[in-house]
């Protein structure tokens, strides 16, 4: 295994381009192609193949914003799994509970930001309680931890159904985030020569921006702070970290708080962009599972790549082959498992 996983830069052959340079060139070409697809006015044959430029670019944008939400949910899932080997199958329930709490707080106080904050804080507290009261007792027995998380998700789903019933809620987006913006992307040229620009909901762009900022924040926390150092060390070797005198239980509690809090945060944010209804928990659980399988456990960058792939696949699938869209997600998972069973950014052990 270790021979196969050697960094690609070591494969320099005399004279030609190295493997790394070749890949760089490849990605540059892909980026150029995407940029051309987004910014150029499409010729007719391309419009004929891909329905219309508006549909295509909208699908891409929707995919990326959805990826932002998936990333928020899955990054917590992957950190918890990577550090504690705890497949927390109640993670989708945390998302949904966050959305309901955000809805209640936002609609009662009238302040959307308060709802977002409540979603984060309440779920972070619940996460700590779950870790300390439940999962710590079963440490080292990952199958039982997973079974317990399944039990929690069943009870949670049923109790949420009891409190909020089966209806669909929509969290109202504040005015300053509402409305649409015109993007510098020409979708078509009218016969009179005027260009038609793409408009897109401002809120979704804000969600994407928030996801990127949080992603960078997580990366900084993991790579530049002491706690982050402990978390990374714990992902690699938990026993060794404990032996070096770090209070691993405190680290576990912090990670669980951050992971659950992010799920709750994503719940409020996602509940404002889409809707809140029973069943959403399973949708986001599936997304988290696939993102972690594809991206590799315990890796934030892997979660970002996985979320991007799954978000794009879902939205493009929705536009181009509506009844077979899920198959695309499935294929991505199978291909990753076939080529790199440990995930794109995962470390083999």
């Amino acid at each position, binding site marked *: 295994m270790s021979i196969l996983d050697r960094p690609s830069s070591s494969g320099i052959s005399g004279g030609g381009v190295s493997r790394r340079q070749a890949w760089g060139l490849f990605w540059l070409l892909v980026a150029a192609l995407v940029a051309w697809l987004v910014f150029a006015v499409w010729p007719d044959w391309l419009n004929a193949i891909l329905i219309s430029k508006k549909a295509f670019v909208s699908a891409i944008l929707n995919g990326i914003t959805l990826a932002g939400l998936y990333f928020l949910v899955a990054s917590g899932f992957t950190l918890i799994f990577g550090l504690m080997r705890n497949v927390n199958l109640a993670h989708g329930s945390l998302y949904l509970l966050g959305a309901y709490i955000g809805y209640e707080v936002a609609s009662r106080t009238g302040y959307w930001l308060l709802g977002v904050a409540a979603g984060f804080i309440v779920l972070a507290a619940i996460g700590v309680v779950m870790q300390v009261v439940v999962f710590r007792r079963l440490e080292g027995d990952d199958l039982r931890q997973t079974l317990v998380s399944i*039990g929690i998700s069943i009870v949670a789903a049923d109790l949420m159904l009891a409190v909020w019933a089966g209806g669909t809620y929509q969290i109202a987006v504040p005015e300053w985030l509402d409305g649409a913006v015109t993007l510098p992307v020409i979708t078509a040229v009218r016969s009179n020569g005027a260009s038609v620009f793409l408009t897109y909901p401002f809120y979704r762009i804000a969600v994407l921006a928030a996801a990127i900022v949080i992603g960078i924040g997580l990366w900084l926390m993991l790579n530049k702070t002491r706690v982050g150092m402990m978390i990374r060390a714990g992902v690699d070797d938990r026993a060794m970290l404990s032996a070096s005198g770090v209070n691993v239980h405190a680290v576990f509690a912090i990670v669980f708080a951050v992971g659950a809090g992010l799920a709750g945060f994503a719940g409020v944010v996602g509940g404002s962009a889409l809707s809140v209804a029973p069943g959403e928990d399973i949708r986001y659980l599936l997304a988290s599972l696939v993102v972690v399988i594809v991206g590799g456990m315990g890796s934030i960058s892997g979660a970002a790549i996985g979320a991007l792939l799954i978000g794009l696949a879902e939205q493009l699938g929705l536009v181009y082959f509506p009844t077979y869209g899920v198959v695309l997600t499935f294929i991505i998972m199978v291909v990753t498992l076939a080529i790199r069973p440990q995930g794109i950014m995962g470390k083999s052990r």
Partner: protein
Amino acid sequence: MTISLQSTPVATQPNWLDKIGAGHILLGIALVLYPLVASDFFLTQIGGYSLIFGMLGLSLMMLAGYGGMVSLAQITVAGIAAYCIAIFGDNNSHLLGFGWPWWIAAPVAILIAAIASSLIGWISVRTEGIYTIMITLAIATATFYFAQQNYAIFNGHSGYAGIRAPAFWGVNSRDPKAFYYLCLGFSVLAYAAILYGSRSTFGLTLQAIRDNPRRMRALGFNVTAHKVFAWFLAGIIGGLGGVLLVWFNGRVSPGTIGVDAAIDVLIIAVIGGLRHPIGPFLGALVVVLMQTFAIDLVGAERFNTLIGLVFLVIVFISPDGILGLWAKFKPNFSQESLRPGR
């Protein structure tokens, strides 16, 4: 010297009654005589239903108990068989329905389910341990969404209805008694096959792989092939359960193979116990009884909370389920002198 004179070891060949064991014989008699005392409701809704879900749990127990692979995709495998029965046989949903006779449709459906199960296994054995549960859950969820969205094959949200259990040899298996015996027959077959298989060369190899895959690989065993074959066998049992399930319900829809159902199968197997093939049947009986009668206690709405809590309690106090509880209390009932010293 005296010892060799004293006893000439006779290889006592145990007769087949001893081999089966008194417990199994008593249980068998009770199950066969059950229709004499039970009403139609108890025969199908409790008896038949428990046996069907027991078989689904059994296919999971086989993978988890002997192979160390906890799968959440067993209901998916069963669902594939159920959909195949609807597609190859008759349904009244005006879609597909090739009208094959049951004796072709059922084996083909089970075979397709077993192949699908091997594929799921082949995907999931790329990784080890707890990953299996994640991958199989992802597959089960994706299949559920696919069945819900796709109208060409799965008939979307509504699925297929009007599937009838076959009548053969002059017996109408829609009749409660006949259907009960049908389920009982296949359950006993599957149970006996698992018991026999667990002591066969393959079964022992599989258990050895569960305990130490690296050593088995070093000894020259093809670990992947053994695991995938275990998935194939589990797929046969799961497919059989799926065929009986669709005959029982008369319909199959995405709800049949949803995440709730996938988790139900896991709950059944875990509550019963994953150590012995009788566990899933016990678990199924407990869950079905709860489903039927707990509604009077907590109301139909909050049933999932109850079952979830029971599941949590079982996982916390006895990881081996009811069988584990039994093993814990059994010494207290035995003769004083036989009790383990404490």
